[in-house]
């Protein structure tokens, strides 16, 4: 399949679905509080542009901050684990507990502890919890996957732990880390949205809250506009990380080999 076709095909499909949607809503005269037509959603988007954008920025900044902190924390802890079996054995179970406990269930607690006056910090912590674990577990695995013969070779030439870590283990872990980043980027957004829902009325000003608010007022078109903005954000995050992955790996990694078509 040619490159242009691969890009054009999903776009054409999307446009066709939108056109069909518009036609059905008009033909069947579906009321806008049940299902607004794409054109109505577009109008709602334009009408509420300023407030939607401000909300999008709130959600995006929490998502990105949580993601960056998850990246630093996950890689940092994984490196610590790789240097000390003791620390790994002591801490890993708690990282798992953090991961398997549904975030919706602990979110209210975190919000109470941190306090409504610092709600952004609470949202950040919740999104961070969700985004953190894939980075930690994949990087931990990646650091351990270094070729044993290569480790021997490094030792033969007198390399210390630091050199083995930076020149062998970290490059080995890079593909694992990059695929974890694609997952965590999406999870950070989900975490931020869930946190806003839990935080609820008045306090949060992100996109999730716009959705709740619009729903309460039966402004379904505005709700769709916020929803579309949210998916756009998720898509943008995913593709930026996929592009980063390609940039860093395509020269040498097997995953970037051209597929046989």
């Amino acid at each position, binding site marked *: 399949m040619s490159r242009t076709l691969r890009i054009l095909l999903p776009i054409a499909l999307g446009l066709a679905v939108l056109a069909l949607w518009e036609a059905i809503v008009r033909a069947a005269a579906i009321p806008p509080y049940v299902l607004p037509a794409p054109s109505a959603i577009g109008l709602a988007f334009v009408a509420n542009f300023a407030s939607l954008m401000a909300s999008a920025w709130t959600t995006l900044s929490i998502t990105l901050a949580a993601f960056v902190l998850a990246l630093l924390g996950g890689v940092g802890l994984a490196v610590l684990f790789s240097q000390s079996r003791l620390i790994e054995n002591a801490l890993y179970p708690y990282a798992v507990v953090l991961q398997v406990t549904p975030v919706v269930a602990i979110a209210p607690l975190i919000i109470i502890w941190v306090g409504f006056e610092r709600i952004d910090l609470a949202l950040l912590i919740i999104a961070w919890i969700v985004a953190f674990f894939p980075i930690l577990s994949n990087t931990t695995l990646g650091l351990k996957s270094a*070729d044993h*013969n*290569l480790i*021997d*070779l*490094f*030792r*033969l*030439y*007198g*390399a210390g732990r630091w*050199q083995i870590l930076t*020149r*062998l283990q970290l*490059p080995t872990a*890079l593909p694992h880390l990059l695929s974890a980043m694609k997952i965590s980027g999406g999870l950070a957004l989900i975490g931020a949205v869930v946190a806003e829902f839990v935080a609820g009325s008045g306090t949060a000003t992100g996109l999730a809250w716009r959705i709740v608010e619009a729903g309460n007022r039966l402004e379904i078109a505005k709700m769709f506009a916020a929803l579309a903005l949210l998916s756009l954000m998720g898509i943008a995050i995913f593709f930026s990380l996929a592009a980063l992955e390609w940039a860093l790996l395509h*020269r*040498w*990694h*097997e995953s970037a*080999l051209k597929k046989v078509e």
Partner: protein
Amino acid sequence: MPLLTLFRVAKRFDSGLEAIRRLDLAVKPGEFVSLVGPSGCGKSTALRIIAGLLQPTEGAVAFPGGRPEIGFVFQEPTLMPWADALGNVRLPLELKGVARGEAEARAARALERVGLKGFEKSYPRELSGGMKMRVSIARALAAGPKLLLMDEPFAALDELTRQALNDDLLKLWREDKLTVLFVTHSVFESTYLSTRVVVMRPRPGRVHDEIVLAPPAERNEAWRVTAEFAGEAARVSAALKHAMEEGE
């Protein structure tokens, strides 16, 4: 004075497995010694002990003339996939603290010697199996070793590539006055390359027999098909067969 001696070396792993019971070996400078023996008799373990990567449980490894620079070649090319050929060959020099520019030049020279001039910027996945093995040999040579330890380096290659690499290895051995300890499963390869073949018994490893060979100055295709070569190979083969039967 031998370059390397193993004195009553024994190795028992933490698992309790006795890999080597007793290994005595002396290697003189300039020798090309092949180590053959049944699978699991401790050949790789012995190489790792000599390289200082494993400690023997008993006995000692000694280098009477001081520890020489050691090069190691594994069965797999064992290259870093994220580094190009030059980057891989440069590694030992960089780890030893050689300045960047000099390391670069020496690595390029090592690649040239194994016939890979022009492939400096190629990544491992862009190279064939034989070429990857050449990079691996260049890396082992880059730091100017006196002793080269090779663990079935050509086992995964096709016959023609293997023969070409055997000839190139002999050339490097002669030019650099290397001492080589070469593990192989191939009777023909050991006969073709070595000045001496050490035959080991099944696990736990011991030396069963040693065959001193007197190869002609110029080993080549023609020598491989002489009756003389066949006779030498038959000696190695018989010793190996006998070692297998000995066992415990």
